[in-house]
């Protein structure tokens, strides 16, 4: 039986790498070997795939806006989720005693983690887009009404929605990191006369910083692959102008954006793909998987580094 269960571990690892190889093979076959959609050389083709103008209906060119859209989305999301998630984690592991309130928060966190992403999408559409967005428009962009500026799906609301989706991920990871910090550190800090907040921010947090980052990166990895809320709150089929600007704050918060996951969804179900379409689909999927994979690996190695450091450096 041990052999059987060990084989299952192997099987899961095989499935994962099998899927990856499938994507790499299909994408590679299309990029390197087949010459149907393009006659030009390989570098030209790469250039077309990434930097040419997006050709949504036939696909095959211009992933750049979608990549930038995805990255801007996760970055804006991180801006929102970081303070909230870290503060909640600090509260849970440093401030709160075990009361009904913390129990409530803990149950809420596990529940938030279990709520389907599409439900967050509904909430984002109803609360952020129509609710908050409508208010913002009425207050600041009244001259443009009835055309809404923020009262319509856009980058900001998508980022806020994803921030809520990933809040539990960050909280759990950061709490884990804070709990791993040895108590001696806190006691020493208090004994030297530091206040509670000084203890938390100057003694405990630096020690837990890698897990904070690993939590945030995990959240961005999850956010990059989450598509279902975006169907409701902001991704579009075609928007070649990037959601960025040269003026502060450098990001067009109200703009709709293209997104890799949405692009994939669109390519699979909406586009009339020419020959080579399969490779194109694999290509988008591969970029998305690589993006998430790299983020995941970073997070995991950060966490591993923490564990190592704590076992080595902690003299107690």
């Amino acid at each position, binding site marked *: 039986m041990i052999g059987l269960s060990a084989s299952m571990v*192997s099987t899961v690892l095989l499935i994962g790498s099998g899927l990856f190889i499938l994507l790499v093979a299909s994408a590679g076959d299309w990029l390197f070997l087949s010459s149907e959609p393009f006659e030009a050389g390989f570098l030209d083709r790469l250039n077309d795939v990434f930097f040419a103008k997006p050709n949504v209906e036939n696909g095959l060119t211009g992933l750049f806006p979608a990549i930038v859209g995805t990255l801007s989305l996760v970055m804006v999301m991180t801006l929102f989720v970081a303070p909230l998630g870290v503060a909640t984690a600090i509260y849970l592991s440093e401030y709160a005693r075990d009361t009904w309130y913390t129990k409530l928060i803990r149950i809420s966190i596990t529940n938030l983690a*279990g709520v*389907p992403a*599409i439900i967050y999408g509904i909430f984002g559409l*109803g609360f952020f887009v129509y609710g908050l967005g409508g208010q913002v428009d009425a207050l600041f962009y009244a001259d443009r009404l009835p055309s809404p500026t923020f009262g319509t799906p856009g980058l900001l609301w998508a980022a806020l929605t994803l921030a809520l989706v990933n809040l539990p991920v960050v909280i759990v990871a950061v709490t884990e990191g804070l709990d791993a910090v040895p108590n001696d550190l806190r006691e020493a800090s208090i004994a030297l006369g530091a206040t509670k907040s000084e203890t938390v921010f100057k003694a405990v947090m630096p020690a837990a910083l890698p897990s904070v980052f690993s939590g945030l990166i995990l959240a961005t990895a999850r956010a990059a692959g989450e598509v279902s809320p975006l169907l409701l709150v902001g991704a579009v089929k075609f928007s070649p102008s990037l959601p960025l600007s040269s003026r502060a704050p450098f990001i067009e918060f109200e703009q709709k954006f293209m997104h890799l996951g949405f692009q994939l969804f669109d390519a699979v*179900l909406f586009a009339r793909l020419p020959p080579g379409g399969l490779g194109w689909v694999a290509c988008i999927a591969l970029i998305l998987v690589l993006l998430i994979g790299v983020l995941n690996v970073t997070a995991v190695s950060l966490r591993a580094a923490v564990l190592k450091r704590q076992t080595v450096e902690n003299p107690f």
Partner: protein
Amino acid sequence: MANWRHFKSVSLGLLIRAASFTVIFALLGMVVQMMVVAAPIFAASTLERIDSPEGVRGALVSRAESQDADLTQSTYWVSKDGWQLQGSPGNPWLWVHDQTAVPLNVRELPSDFSIAQMVGHQRGLAVLVGNTLEHFHFSQSTSINNVPAVERVKTVLVGSDIVALAGHPRLAVVAFATSSSEIQVVDFRNPNASLRIQVDVEIDTIVWVSPSLIRALTPSGDALLFVFRATDIGGDWRRLLSPIEYEGYPSEEYLWLPLPSAQRAEPKYSVVPLIFGTLKAALLALLFSAPLSLGCAIYVGCFMSEAQRQRVRPAIDMLTAFPTVVLGAIGLFWLAPRFGEFLSALIGVIALFPILAILGVFVVRGLGWRWVRHDALDDWPLRLLPLVLLVIAVGAAAGLSGAARLPGGSLEAYLLSSGVSISHFNSLLVGIVLGLAITPTIFSIAEEAIHAVPRNLAAGALALGSTPWQGYRDVVLPLALPGMIAAIMVGFGRAAGETMILVMLSGNTGIMDLSIFEGLRSVSASLALELPEAPKTSSHYQVLFVMGLLLFGLTFIVNTVAEIIRARVRMRVRGL
């Protein structure tokens, strides 16, 4: 200085406390917002008199004029399918003619009916007999010689003399005026809640201008306007959950046909098929995922060293690097087109897989040489990799060649000859891909539960002479069982809420069929497909929010129960 530091500390503490509230706010906000949006669907219908608004009068009145023609109290109607129906007061028969006016079918109508009007997009007839209104509908499915049968659905007693009657253009609703100058609206779907308004002038004609506007005319030609507000379910929540005998259908059915922007047909909002589809998909996903992920969890949790565990857990978590939209695309482009072959290969692999248990023994006990060391359990998954690959390859090949040997030459042909046809988008495919998506979730939670059980318990068993497997099976796993059940529950919740895979692979057919070779339609997919385009104030939008609440409720219950179980297990294990 000390005060400032103290102040800083306290204010930061307050900020942190406030931030922690976000979590509860998010959860509560979600529930409240969905409830607020969904609640109007359950509102009772209302009828209200309005002054005709200046701006819209022209448009509305002109449309009403054009409808007057076919809304006179004639006794001769043409149904939408070309059947001519004829009946006249005093004549107890309703005649159904074909286009050449040859009577084909007669149904007994109540004698001495005085007024009759088409209702609900000409699917039915409201007939006034004395003081009762009777609702008939033309049922085509139970037709005789392809001529629609006419069946009585409901009888409603009305109090007073009716002078004018008009059928709703879309729903089984009639508006009528009585001789005592009262305007009434009766909903045949919910006849107890009739609405009435007393006016002070005599009314002799009444017309539905639009599904929500009634226009009544006095003999002198003045027009009165009434607004009839009704949700598409007429304020009756049972229409979401109970089987309904819809007009035109021979029996009670569960149907999800929202028919948005259809002006002259009745939308059907039974959530039952969607809930059925959601549960079916989630259970099938568990069927595939649970053995695999629990098997992994047992091995990693029981037999691996801490260092190795720290490496393998993230490796399995890497499956989450495949977002569900990618898994859906893989299912759609690579699995669905050759599902028959995939399925035969899969059956072969599943059939051969238990052999690994026996092969494993040989590998461990050795055939003169040892592949893995019995005490170095860490290495097994990696060392077994070639063996597993071999078994999978052999299993797949055996499955494929076995299928080729079946009468018909392939699994699909064989199933076809035995009367089973595999749909392109079928539940089994959904279950397999969805199962893959939830495997890391179940694994992670179950492994944690197993790992939390102190190892010295197993060590004690080993010391008493049991094999490692016996030790863990009889001592550790029983303790971890509740945690493993919790893991399965969380996985179930995840599967029930998963959207992209279902949108792409389930076929979105609202049928309730237990067959795993038929498609399904899930709540989440319906939300994703229909919500972005449903008008914000429509019943459709509100019903979708009701479904959102149901889905939320399902995952909430599952997750809370799972969390309680996990907390209990943690307490119990801590005591050991």
